[in-house]
């Protein structure tokens, strides 16, 4: 769906994007993460054909973005981190204008407005002036403007900034809904916990380079789980003791008192393994599944690359 190859974007004395390459599959929700100044907004603006890179290729829905920027505009929806609304127009007028500007016929505008406002829970605010809305509601209207023409790809720059937890939850639901409708989303954010609720992939950008692209919600090997084993007191040659047990794989040990294990099987087999560990006279005080989240994945990547 989205292919970026060797993309270079330069500001005076600064290479903001340095030979960035990645592929985003159709129907995915990709979290674009990275520290401030990593080049996230620049990347999104280049992909939206708003800024012109120095070199490279961007293909969205088989459209060469740099060669045919206007064709790209037809298939994408973009929300800037510094978006604005027409404060003196009502929400309905704002949505109507964007719908018409995106080529939706006058007769179809009402249905498009109805659909998008229902999805964003703003159908009770359609006749309110946009300038009087709260930050969260403004954000929803702006997202509504970005998706009213049902684009194939939606690029969102910090869409949840300034939203309260409830609004963020609703936003996550909306994104999952858009994904179900076949849209491909690329969402940049600093709030990793928020991205975790809906992201299928993560793209880590640092100092203008893609340093990691990982699938977050892919199914791993059936019945394989990572566990952490913590002992009350250290045990000599812990790694050797554990490696002798054939129903587990030792990922790593720490100070003969903690170990990270990979275990196959269901909860009955987990119970049997715990019994085995205790039968080896290991002073187990903790035996728990490791739930990897986006934050861990991101921090692991950053640490690994540092």
């Amino acid at each position: 769906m989205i292919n970026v190859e060797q993309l270079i974007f330069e500001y005076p004395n600064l290479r903001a994007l340095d030979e960035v390459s990645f592929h985003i599959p159709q129907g995915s929700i990709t979290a674009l993460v990275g520290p401030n100044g990593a080049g996230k907004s620049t990347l999104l603006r280049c992909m939206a054909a708003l800024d012109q890179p120095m070199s490279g290729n961007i293909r969205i829905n088989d459209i060469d973005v740099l060669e045919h920027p206007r064709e790209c505009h037809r298939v994408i929806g973009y929300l800037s981190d510094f978006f604005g609304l027409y404060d003196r127009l009502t929400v309905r007028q704002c949505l109507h204008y964007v719908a018409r500007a995106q080529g939706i016929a006058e007769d179809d505008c009402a249905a498009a407005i109805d659909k998008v406002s229902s999805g964003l829970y703003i159908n009770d605010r359609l006749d309110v002036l946009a300038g009087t809305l709260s930050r969260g509601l403004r954000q929803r209207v702006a997202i509504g403007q970005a998706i009213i023409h049902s684009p194939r790809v939606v690029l969102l720059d910090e869409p949840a900034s300034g939203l309260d937890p409830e609004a963020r939850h609703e936003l996550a639901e909306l994104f999952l809904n858009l994904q179900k409708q076949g849209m491909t989303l690329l969402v940049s954010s600093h709030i990793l916990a928020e991205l975790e609720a809906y992201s299928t992939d993560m793209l880590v950008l640092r100092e203008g380079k893609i340093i990691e692209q990982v699938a977050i919600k892919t199914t791993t090997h059936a019945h394989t789980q990572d566990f952490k084993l913590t002992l009350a007191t250290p045990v000599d040659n812990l790694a050797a003791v554990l490696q002798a047990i054939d129903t587990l794989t030792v990922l790593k040990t720490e100070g003969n008192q903690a170990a990270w294990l990979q275990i196959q099987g269901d909860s009955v087999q987990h119970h049997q393994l715990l019994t085995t560990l205790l039968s080896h006279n290991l002073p187990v005080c903790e035996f728990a599944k490791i739930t990897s989240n986006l934050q861990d994945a991101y921090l692991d990547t950053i640490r690994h690359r540092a």
Partner: protein
Amino acid sequence: MNLNPEFQRQLQLEFSQARLVGVPLILGIIFTLTYFLDNQTHNEVSITAQTALGLFLLMVSFWGARQAVDSVLEEQRSHTWDTQRLSALDPWTMVCGKLLGSTLVVWYGGVICLLVYGLAADNLSNLLWVYGYAITSGLLVQNISLLLSLIALRKGQINSNSVITGLAIIAAFTIGSWIMPLSSNPQALQAMPDASWYGISTTSQFLTLMTVCWALFWCVVGNYRLMTQELRIRTLPWVWFAFALFLIVYAGGFIEAQHFSEYFYTTAFAICLTLSYLIVFTEYNEPMRIKRLLTYITQENWQRAAEELPLWCVTFVLAAVVALPLSFTHPADIEELHVYPITILLFLLRDIGIFLFFSFGKNPQRAFSLTLLSFVLLYGVLPGIFAAADLKAVSALFFPLVADSMIISIICMGVQSALVWYVLYQRWQESV
């Protein structure tokens, strides 16, 4: 009905009920007052007619210019410009929507003023001319304002409203000084001299109106072109080339037939020089653009390179083409100054280099003022000091048009240009 969405939005924003009622109400009060004044004073010239025309000019120029400017710069200030750039609207729809939609309320008031003028004017012999001049001039001022605001947007100078509106006020007074006598003096048109264009005899009022119409046409083309670039539609610089050729051909029509061959190249050269200066000061000059241009040239991607080519290059090359035959026709000297076309071309090259040098610096906003300061020093102060000290040869180093030898003047200017462009190259390398 599928109305132009941008036009419709501008109407929703600008054509409020309050304005719909307020504009005729206020104008009605003013005209009631002038009507009573007319009855009391019994002037030869109708105060109501003069007021109506004056108000029309003020409204379409001052208010109209402000509306046109805001229709673009306000988008950037309120962060809605990206939404518009990403829309499916074509440049023509955008230009028409912004220009007509934002100024419709102004024309609503303007039409009332013109109707009152038509009813109150004592002298109706010039009515159509007055209407023609007033409407085309008003449209021209609004189009120029939109053009300047698009240029300001491209250069990131989004708070330029007051400057552009100030220029519009000057334009309003200039137009007023031209139209007002027509409205008050029935003989004003007849008093104007006849004119000819490529041997076609006509009246100067008709030529003036045609010139305003052509200016309006090119302004609309300019607006379309700038909007095209804003919407990221790829363009080649042929419109600028066509505009330069048009000006050369159009201005050539005003040269007397017997002096045509003598002055045509001079006129063409002067036009190319003026356009080069004009465009280098108005275009957005960023170092990264030059880097992209050089990258495309290295890749032999000529289409892309032409898209990135600064427009001053087009008129500079055109000026160079004209300068060669001009050098052999020995144009007349102006007092002590010798007109050496190649030297003048090198002046242009040096001046462009100076402006780009400041544009590529840390404070490009000051590039224009610093360049003007440099020009004062290079054209006035330094040659003036040496000339005053009777050191003509040294003075010629800075201002080679006083040198008696063309070769020496070319060498002096060539050295200056080379130095400036060397320093410019150093700065460009530092900034990319």
